[in-house]
């Protein structure tokens, strides 16, 4: 796991530049195509976007507009075709697959729409996975995972299997898993769309409360207008481009009118 830590320091150093203007993620003219020939689909056609430290950025827009594609590029699990994209001053396109994997392990936390918890592992084991991937011993990983579960309000459910938890509880386990290794970037794709309104609201309150911090950036993809109010800023995508960027609360009040 040494490449991960090795990567973390130059990234930190680089982010020193951007930290002065507070920029954590810096994308310019990012394009992405799927397939080739007649079946070629252009998912992103020149995305300009920056996300600051301490910020919760939401990506919204109609289905198929490229939200998932963009967040995948930002998280380093999908290669862009053209343009520039730096995350903490680092460009994924200059890294080997192994380096990207290590970078993600050390710097990125994921929350998925379908939770993606391992069904045969308990909540505390699931939430400990990022630490174990980083090479931490099982014992201390579980201990830290228990603390994190307590912070998401599941202190007493550490030994439960995912199937014994409600959807909201499972998503809270997923949030604990995304936070347990204290990553600088957290990406979430539709974190509330598998939950009912009230549960989704609570999950977002929890995110705001414990995930947002001065050294951290959150990027959340959603088309659930009811959670827009939790955003600091909202980037509206359409047809592979950023149409507008606005302040979160503004959008909410506009929508309310």
């Amino acid at each position: 796991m040494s490449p991960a830590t090795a990567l973390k320091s130059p990234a930190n150093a680089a982010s020193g530049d951007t930290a002065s203007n507070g920029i954590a993620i810096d994308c310019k003219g990012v394009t992405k195509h799927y397939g080739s020939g007649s079946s070629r689909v252009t998912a992103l056609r020149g995305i300009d976007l920056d996300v600051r430290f301490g910020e919760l950025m939401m990506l919204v827009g109609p289905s198929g507009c490229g939200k998932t594609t963009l967040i995948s590029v930002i998280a380093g699990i999908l290669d862009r075709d053209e343009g520039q994209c730096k995350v903490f001053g680092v460009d994924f396109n200059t890294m080997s697959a192994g380096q990207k994997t290590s970078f993600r392990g050390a710097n990125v936390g994921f929350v998925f729409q379908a939770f993606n918890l391992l069904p045969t592992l308990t909540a505390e084991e699931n939430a400990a996975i990022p630490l174990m991937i980083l090479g931490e011993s099982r014992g201390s990983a579980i201990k830290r995972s228990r603390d994190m579960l307590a912070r998401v309000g599941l202190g007493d459910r550490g030994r439960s299997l995912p199937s014994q938890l409600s959807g909201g509880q499972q998503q809270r386990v997923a949030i604990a898993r995304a936070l347990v290794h204290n990553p600088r970037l957290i990406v979430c794709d539709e974190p509330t769309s598998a939950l009912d309104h009230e549960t989704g609201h609570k999950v977002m309150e929890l995110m705001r409360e414990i995930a947002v911090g001065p050294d951290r950036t959150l990027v959340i993809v959603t088309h659930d207008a009811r959670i827009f109010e939790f955003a600091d800023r909202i980037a509206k995508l359409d047809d592979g481009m950023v149409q507008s960027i606005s302040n979160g609360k503004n959008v909410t009040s506009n929508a309310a009118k």
Partner: protein
Amino acid sequence: MIRVALQMLVGDRLKYLGLIVGIAFASLLISQQASILVGLAHQTGSFVRDTSHADLWVMDSEVRFSQDSLSLSDNTLLRVRGIEGVQWAVPLYQGFLKAKLPDGTRMTAIVIGLDDATLIGGPPEMVQGSLADLRQDKAVIVDYNALESKFMMKRSGGRPIRVGDNLSINDQDARLVGTYRASQSFFWEPVIYTTYSRALQYAPRERKLMTYVMVKLKPDADVAKVAASIEAATGLKARTNDEFIALTRDYILKETGILINFGLAVGLGFIVGTLIAGQMLYNFTLDNLRHYGALKAMGAGNGTLVIMNLIQALTVGVLGYGIGLGLGSLLGQLVASAGLAFRMPWQVPVLCGVAILIICLIASALSITRVLKLEPAIVFKGG
């Protein structure tokens, strides 16, 4: 992450058990069939092994196996006795003769005639009577273990023959004076021992009747040298006990197709095992692909995932191997106690273990390619 891999595996009860059962089946099939093959191969040498009182067997140069019964001329015995290094040499008759039980049940038996003076070449152990009883008039002895089967008088209600019964061999009278115990033989025909001279009376008139000359060497004589001089002097073949056992085994395995048949069965076990395990592990991995994708996204490298997959394959491999081998040897004890061929020398578990290991590696290699090709971006795809 090793523990995580095991939890993923064990948590999916049905697939886990299926994998173990599949590999256990392959392990059972491979070890079982290989052991029967080894057992059969061993049994082809039973007669020579039981009759290894001397150092060399002198036989017709065309003899291919121990029951081939090609005869030698009478003066062979004298010529062999005259060779340097020979301490003693005795004749042995062996032939397939027609026998009839008291009730008229007919059979073909292997009749063995032992040197009248010394009775050398007899069975390893007597059960009823003694070998010396063969010196009585018309005396023969039979295999105790065959009493209930081959020597059963099926025509008169089914009683085995017993000491004192009169049989006939080639329409001449014989009287049962004892029974012996010998190793289980590959050859089906029941074996009847008598003296050399009486065997010659039973046998159809032929010019030559001696089958083997058994040769004991002087203590300081060199086996290879004496064998070579015997062959040079007589134009016959001289073989040590071990050589004769090997000659018989190789011939039988090849000529009967046993080697090919059991080899195929072992190969089949291997192929079936590979298919079952490969396809089950592949399915298991496919079912978990989403999770592997998530692990990949969260920073688990290909190396970690390969190790996880290998751990899963080897775990079911070791368990399946153990269960299959255990069942195999248990079943083997049963069939062996029923007198069937079954032998499991250490080479069989080792061979079986190597086969299972290869099966697991193939199965793992098949499924791991899917994990390696997996784009971590799929974690955000679909519900």
